[in-house]
């Protein structure tokens, strides 16, 4: 009897019941928040991206944890109105200290709404090109093609130009090539069109484009543009260079390297430059 009374008084003195209740609220609340947030993120919400579902899951989880925390504090006897007052002052202080983080957070929300790119897209931002591996609350993570990990703050993504290379299903490759002045441009056009025609990866439509971009110092400059599926873009790029070179070699079309001709006057012919044997004594 005396032991029971001692035990009861011990429990009352240290409010063990309250602490136990608060602890149980937190533990049960944690698992409940996990379950509910996972359930909500798996709901068939049409059109929601993987990134959106992650954000939704986290928001639901942290809101529930916050509610459970408030319940636990109330159970422990804390006056929540005092806490709210303190939170107000604290939020101002935190706001000043975390301007950049808050800006990144809000930028992240705008990126989520605007959706200029998704996970898996290849983008160029801030001079870096790579695959987007995650779009988080504060930053976007990119894996470059040489396997480097790059973190770009969301604020930077909103402020600067971001090019999404894989947004559309097809992409144009512009091949620049120079031919010797002596070559027949129309003949070169036919050869290049035939190269494109024989290459299955090169789309028939939109049709390839042949443009004379100008008369360079050493060559007639051309641009030959062909379209390909975005998945085949790199393969087509390599193939077009190889096959064009091969076709030019077979047809005797010269791709000149930079060269200079010397003239003594407008009426003279080019001055011949040749190496002569040196007499060594």
């Amino acid at each position: 009897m005396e032991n029971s009374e001692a035990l009861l008084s011990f429990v009352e003195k240290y409010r063990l019941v309250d602490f136990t209740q608060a602890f149980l609220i937190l533990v049960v609340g944690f698992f409940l928040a996990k379950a509910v947030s996972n359930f909500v993120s798996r709901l068939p919400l049409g059109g929601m991206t993987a990134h959106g579902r992650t954000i939704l899951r986290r928001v639901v989880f942290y809101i529930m944890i916050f509610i459970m925390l408030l319940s636990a504090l109330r159970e422990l006897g804390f006056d929540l109105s005092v806490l709210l007052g303190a939170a107000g002052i604290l939020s101002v202080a935190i706001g000043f200290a975390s301007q950049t983080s808050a800006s990144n957070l809000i930028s992240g929300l705008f990126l989520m709404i605007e959706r200029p790119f998704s996970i898996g897209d290849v983008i160029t931002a801030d001079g870096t090109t790579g695959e987007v591996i995650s779009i988080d609350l504060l930053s976007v993570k990119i894996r470059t093609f040489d396997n480097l990990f790059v973190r770009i703050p969301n604020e930077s993504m909103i402020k600067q130009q971001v090019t999404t290379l894989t947004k559309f299903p097809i992409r144009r490759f512009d091949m620049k090539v120079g031919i010797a002045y002596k070559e027949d441009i129309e003949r070169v056009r036919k050869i290049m069109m035939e190269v494109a025609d024989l290459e299955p990866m090169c789309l028939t439509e939109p049709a390839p484009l042949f443009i004379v971009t100008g008369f360079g110092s050493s060559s007639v400059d051309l641009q030959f543009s062909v379209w390909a599926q975005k998945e085949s873009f790199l393969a087509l790029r390599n193939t077009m260079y190889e096959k064009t070179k091969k076709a030019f070699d077979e047809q005797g079309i010269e791709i000149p390297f930079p060269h200079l001709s010397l003239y003594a006057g407008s009426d003279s012919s080019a001055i011949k430059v040749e190496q002569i044997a040196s007499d060594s004594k």
Partner: protein
Amino acid sequence: MSNDSRWWGDFNLVDEQLHQWSTGPRQFVMQKSQRELVIWDLGSSTESHDAVTHQLIQEHSIDDAKAIRIILPEDDSNIMIEPSVADRTMVVKPSRPLTLLSEQEVDVFIGTPLWFTVMHKKLDLPLIDQPLFRPSDTWFGNNTMEGAMCYARLSEAKSSSSDLLGLPTRAYTRLTLKNQQPLPIKVERLAVPMPELSVYVDDKGMFWTDSVLVSQSFENGVSRSKVESVQLSEANNTLVSEARVKSQKSSIISSFKSLIG
């Protein structure tokens, strides 16, 4: 092994025997060894007009880099070869654009490359599914942002079946074009839904697909195209392969001006 000279149908692959299917420089060679099936696929940049033949050979010169090895679910030596059609829509461009007057209809015939499809009874997906001649890719859509990846085909689009070359490496499709608009239309290219067409062989050994009906109408100020497949009569035709996808009946596709006219 099939009992006649057909290159398609059921084949029994005896272990270590080399089976070759070829048309001109285009070849498929297969060899089975217990549960392993090796398939060599030698492509060609030009379309062959030779008949596809099947024979047993002693050796071949195809690079092993072009081989694929498949482990079959069981030591079953039976495979099925099916002549199929393209796995994407084929955008056919008549070599000379065709003008169809108002309230007129015409039948044109096009030929598209056959696909060589190898099936195993225990597997839903084919072991290999390759064209006898790979057509060029092309984009079909209103702009470069929205549309579909298709194959491209230049065709004479003959208006009489008797003018057809009847090449053994092609499947022929009858396209019925109907102009139900008040104005003439100029047919510059046609998107033929090849995956929705079954393949048949007639009594002369020529391959045909289901027919396609293309109607162009004018409703509420908008030009609309309707494309539907029409099953071929099996009176003189034998089905050799089912359509890749079931057609969505009478699918009204959006008014691509470039589809017809």
